[in-house]
């Protein structure tokens, strides 16, 4: 029983990070109908910035803040400097450009920092918190839960309670009508990419201490897992992406705990395949009747 609880808590922590990552994918999908396959690589870049600065200044908080700001800038730059010029007539164009960007970013990181794993330390002691003689969770688990919950709540408030959130939603759903109503759709798109990359940066910083550390390809599995979470959630639904991300985290944690850690990458693909076969639109996709 104790082992089950441990594995479950570990699964939720992983899942929360995947949820943030998946949310970043959904943000861009909703705004631009692009699956950002460079999300993982972009998070690698911001994570290197975070941990190098955290190391140099001995301040985790500063490193974290730099990652978020750098994420905002990187997201905006990718949209303004690259994605804006991609013809969207063929969806494959976006995919190929995003994959190219991912290769480019990971190569540049590799050239600058080398291909070895480098430490990414968590800001808390790794001692588990005990209650009733059982080690439940670490402070870092709590930190992950709290951070991701805060990100989700803040994004929710932004989209439902603010004028800019309303503009962003309108621009995503009905770009032409929005322009006629005075919304600068291009600016909303840039903002969407910036926000998504910042959320991705948070996910990247959070996940590294739970994995092997900094590496140009450190986010590959995490990205695949988050992508699965986003697809499970329907790709179009922010709530779905969070639930999907947590579900994937749990499944992987159980597989890793009860079968073998080495099987988890395959388990991700099995889950993805199963969802696509049974319900290709995702579990949370809205099926609604339209009046003609």
């Amino acid at each position, binding site marked *: 029983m104790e082992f089950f609880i441990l594995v479950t808590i570990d699964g939720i922590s992983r899942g929360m990070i995947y949820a943030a990552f998946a949310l970043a994918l959904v943000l861009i999908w909703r705004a631009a109908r692009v699956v950002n396959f460079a999300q993982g690589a972009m998070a690698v870049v911001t994570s290197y910035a975070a941990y190098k600065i955290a190391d140099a200044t001995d301040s985790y908080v500063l490193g974290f803040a730099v990652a978020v700001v750098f994420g905002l800038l990187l997201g905006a730059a990718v949209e303004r400097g690259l994605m804006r010029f991609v013809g969207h007539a063929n969806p494959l164009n976006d995919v190929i450009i995003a994959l190219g960007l991912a290769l480019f970013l990971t190569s540049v990181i590799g050239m600058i920092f080398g291909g070895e794993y480098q430490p990414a330390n968590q800001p808390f002691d790794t001692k588990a918190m005990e209650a009733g003689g059982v080690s439940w969770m670490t402070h870092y688990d709590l930190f992950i839960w709290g951070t991701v919950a805060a990100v989700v709540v803040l994004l929710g408030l932004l989209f439902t309670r603010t004028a800019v959130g309303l503009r962003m939603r309108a621009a995503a759903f009905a770009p032409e009508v929005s*322009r006629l109503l005075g919304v600068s759709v291009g600016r909303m798109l840039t903002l969407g990419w910036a926000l998504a990359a910042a959320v991705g940066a948070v996910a990247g910083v959070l996940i590294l201490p739970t994995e092997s550390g900094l590496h140009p390809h450190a986010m590959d599995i995490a990205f695949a897992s988050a992508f699965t979470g986003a697809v499970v959630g329907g790709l179009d639904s922010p709530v779905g992406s969070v639930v999907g991300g947590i579900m994937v985290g749990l499944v992987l944690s159980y597989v890793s705990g009860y079968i073998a850690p080495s099987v988890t990458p395959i388990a991700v693909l099995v889950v993805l395949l199963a969802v696509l076969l049974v319900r290709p639109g995702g579990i949370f996709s809205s099926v609604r009747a339209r009046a003609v």
Partner: protein
Amino acid sequence: MSVTGNGVKPAGSPGTGEEALSVENLSSGYGLVQVLRDVNLSVPAGTITAVLGANGAGKTTLLRTLTGLVKPTAGRVTFEGTDLRAFKVEELVRRGIAHVPEGRGVVEELTVDENLRLGGLWRKDRADAQKATDEVYELFEPLARRRGHLGHQLSGGERQMLAVGRALIARPKLLLLDEPSLGLAPKVASQIMALLKTLRDSTGLTVLLVEQNVRSALSIADQGVVMSLGRVVMSTEAATLRDDVGLRHAYLGF
């Protein structure tokens, strides 16, 4: 229905007599397909101009080219003396131009309330934007009862009310309306037509109205413009089109 009040005005000096919108030698199209060919049009301020013609005549493309959704390949569009080509689509509403596109006016994923808020987001005068929103709810009673409903849950009539109402929150000087009565119950359609007339008379709103329902459009219009195959083939007073059976037969087929 007959046009009352200052509805019928001789061409050339209706409304305030000043030209609100001027279209000169306008051509546009999609890719290699040319749709508009050398269109000339003059819309006097404070009047309603009905753009009529068969499907595929280029009516919708005309409106879309006026607001820059379709880029003109030649010609000029001026509003109150200013060349509109200098402005982005999203800047036009700030200059007093509202465009309600055909059948796609409502953001289906947003609620009625959010749709209306969207219409006034750009306005600096928050108090007046709120006042305009309240007026829309008064004007279109059914919307007030469905504030929290999503756009896709509304009936066709309610959607059209929402799209038109949302345009009015901008307090536009020029309203471009594409098929406002399409698919609507006759009662709702005539309600919208009556509203346009009232707005013209009370606020001096200038309307460019694309409409399949020729009779209902001509009942409120000051001018009628007939398009065919991307060209303006006739432009005259609405009363003339209404009353001259020969003209109607020749150009409008009834």
